[in-house]
């Protein structure tokens, strides 16, 4: 639980962003070479930061139960593999997940507020949130109203986030910006600032339903928003990169960014998450390759 002692009610002034400059900075992160011990440590970190996710119309009890088991048992053939940070499901599946994970430290995150489009009334969004919290969700992943944002109604977006935060109670709030719909980095920065100042605990790139999602350029922009807020207020905000990160290499580059922009205090799953489904197995294959020296095959790693 975290207390924000200074939540400003003003819509902050965001700096302007030069996209070409961002591309260059990102390229420097991507040419960092992570090998040996630092790679092993990094990969373990990545695993512990994953929110294993299933958000499909065809989700069932069975699917969720199996995913929860995988969350706690990524690859029992090897010792010392950490558990993931959380599972992420629809509100209707929260209770099931909560039950499966009751003896572990894996959290249950629930999407809410008319995920993924958010095209519904505020009243319904708050009801959705409260239901998920009552069912036992530790974290709520909400979506902002992109339509309102793109027409410049920033105060509406701000107030909506603040209202959902209140409905969360003790649950931590992640605010999904859906960066693929915001398109420009200027918009991503502005949306990040609004979400942070309105009370979010985490800012999150995407719903995972559209591409592009968590590109390095977008994640960079959001990390910078977190950095500026921290410099201004001393308050830490978390970051979740969701969608499009399917390889260990990409995940490691993201950790490089977190380290160089925010510092090692953010290198834990309390402050950084990966929203991913197929990432875990790629990381596992890399870890096993480091141990054995041999390239791996998908056949040897369970998919659920």
């Amino acid at each position: 639980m975290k207390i924000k002692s200074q939540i400003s009610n003003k819509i902050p002034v965001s700096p302007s962003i030069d996209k070409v400059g961002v591309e260059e900075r990102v390229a420097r992160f991507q040419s960092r070479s992570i090998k040996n011990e630092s790679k092993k440590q990094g990969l373990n970190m990545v695993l512990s930061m994953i929110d294993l996710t299933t958000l499909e119309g065809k989700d069932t009890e069975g699917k969720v139960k199996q995913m929860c088991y995988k969350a706690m048992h990524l690859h029992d053939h090897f010792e010392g593999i950490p558990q993931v940070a959380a599972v992420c499901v629809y509100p209707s599946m929260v209770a099931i997940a909560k039950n499966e994970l009751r003896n572990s430290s894996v959290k249950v995150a629930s999407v809410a507020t008319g995920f993924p489009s958010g095209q519904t009334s505020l009243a319904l969004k708050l009801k959705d949130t409260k239901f998920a919290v009552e069912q036992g969700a530790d974290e709520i992943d909400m979506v902002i109203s992109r339509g309102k944002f793109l027409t410049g109604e920033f105060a509406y977006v701000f107030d909506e986030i603040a209202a959902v935060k209140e409905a969360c109670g003790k649950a931590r709030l992640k605010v999904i910006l859906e960066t693929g719909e915001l398109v420009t980095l200027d918009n991503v920065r502005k949306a990040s600032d609004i979400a942070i100042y309105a009370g979010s605990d985490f800012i999150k790139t995407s719903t995972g339903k559209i591409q592009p999602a968590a590109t390095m350029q977008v994640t960079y922009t959001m990390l910078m928003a977190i950095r500026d807020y921290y410099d201004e207020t001393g308050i830490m905000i978390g970051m979740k990169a969701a969608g499009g990160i399917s390889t260990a290499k990409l995940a490691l580059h993201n950790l490089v960014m977190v380290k160089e922009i925010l510092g090692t205090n953010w290198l834990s799953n309390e402050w950084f998450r990966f929203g991913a489904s197929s990432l875990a197995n790629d990381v596992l294959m890399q870890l096993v390759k480091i141990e054995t020296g041999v390239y791996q095959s998908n056949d040897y790693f369970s998919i659920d």
Partner: protein
Amino acid sequence: MITFQLINMKKELNDNWDYSSSLEAINHIQLKKKYNLFIDGKWIAPSKNTYFKTINPANEETLAEIASASKEDVDLAVKAARKAYTNVWSKMPASERAKYIYRIARLMQERAREFAVIESLESGKTIRESRDVDIPLACNHFFYYAGWADKLDYAFPNRKIESLGVAGQIIPWNFPLLMAAWKIAPALAAGNTVVLKPAETTSLTALKLAEIIEESGLPPGVVNIVTGFGETGAAIVNHPDINKIAFTGSTAVGKIIQKALVGTSKKVTLELGGKSANIIFEDAPIDQAVEGIVNGIFFNQGHVCCAGSRLYVQEGIAEKIIKKLKQRMESLYVGDPLDKNTDIGAINSKEQLQTIEKYLKIGLDEGAEMYQPKCTIPKKGFYCAPTLFLNVAQSSIIAQEEIFGPVLTIQTFRTVDEVVQKANNSPFGLAAGVWTDKGSRIFNLTSKLRAGVIWANCYNKFDPTSPFGGYKESGFGREGGLHGLSAYLKLS
């Protein structure tokens, strides 16, 4: 502020996460123990049989022995160049000349990694720089100029175009292979032959280029490489049978050369030093500007003639910029150039490190406030941490003289007039940077700053098509683009 932590991993494990050493493999490169001079398509021993050692500035280990060319050797080289020019190169159809130059470009691309490793080993620049910037630009420069060889009429319509003959070229140690490309490619495309002297601390990639030139089948004598010290360079400058001198290096030596050429008919171009202003306005995209500052002065250890070594920040955002700059500097790694994670490599030589340290002392004596981030510096080799000087005045020595190291002086300004005047208030005029979100302000600044290259919302961008060169004491003549051809042609 209360924080309650609930995590899966021990906090200590992640607090110390840093990058393990990631050394570039070097077992695939081929270096001879001893290099002779490349004259008339052959490797010949220097007439006085003198050699000198070239070392790796990262650890002071010897890499190879290099021949020291005497006045007689230079004479041999010029004779070979003249013979090749008269009998072969000037008679060859331009489209065939082009094909040789294309071959050189393609062969360089094939051996790019080897070039990058050797460049880093000898010059001290990071392998990331060599691999991702220097070597590709060098290859591209040859490829670009190859295409001009048979199109010179278009570059200078309505003029009679003739090649000059033999070009004598002297290049510096900060971009060894790239400078060789910038000199040789346009000279050949314009139909000249070449005698080139690389800097004494960085001869190897020029010599490897000579091997490529051999492989390409380029007729003997068209390109000659004579290694050596200042005397070798003087012998080139003073040789009576050279038609054109091209020099890139310090302003002091440039003036010596220009004086030596008075009364001769030799054409000359000089690309000299700089003390370029990097100007940040209040409405700049702040984080990208900070990156541009870092790129402008710490890239290549600050051994860049056009380095943005004078920072001018508009007063309203000075505090923010400086804070962010210091934060950004925390993640710059100083270390072994061959480590892929190094951002700032070794200083090229002991002499250069001493020069830099001299200026650091001057800066402190002048009362400026020095800032260097905490970083681990290797025990052997020549290194300098990235450095900021705050509270610097326009009249400070460190804000006027070229330091040629990773040292940035910071001044503030209030209005556009003021910064234009201050930026121009320098005997140099090589480059400038302007950071603002307002397009009309960009064009205002770019039209008023007296510098040959102006980077708006970017810094240190180079391209074979883009002319590069300075105003005032930063030299004259342009390299790159269509404009770079005129230096090597007689236009009447």
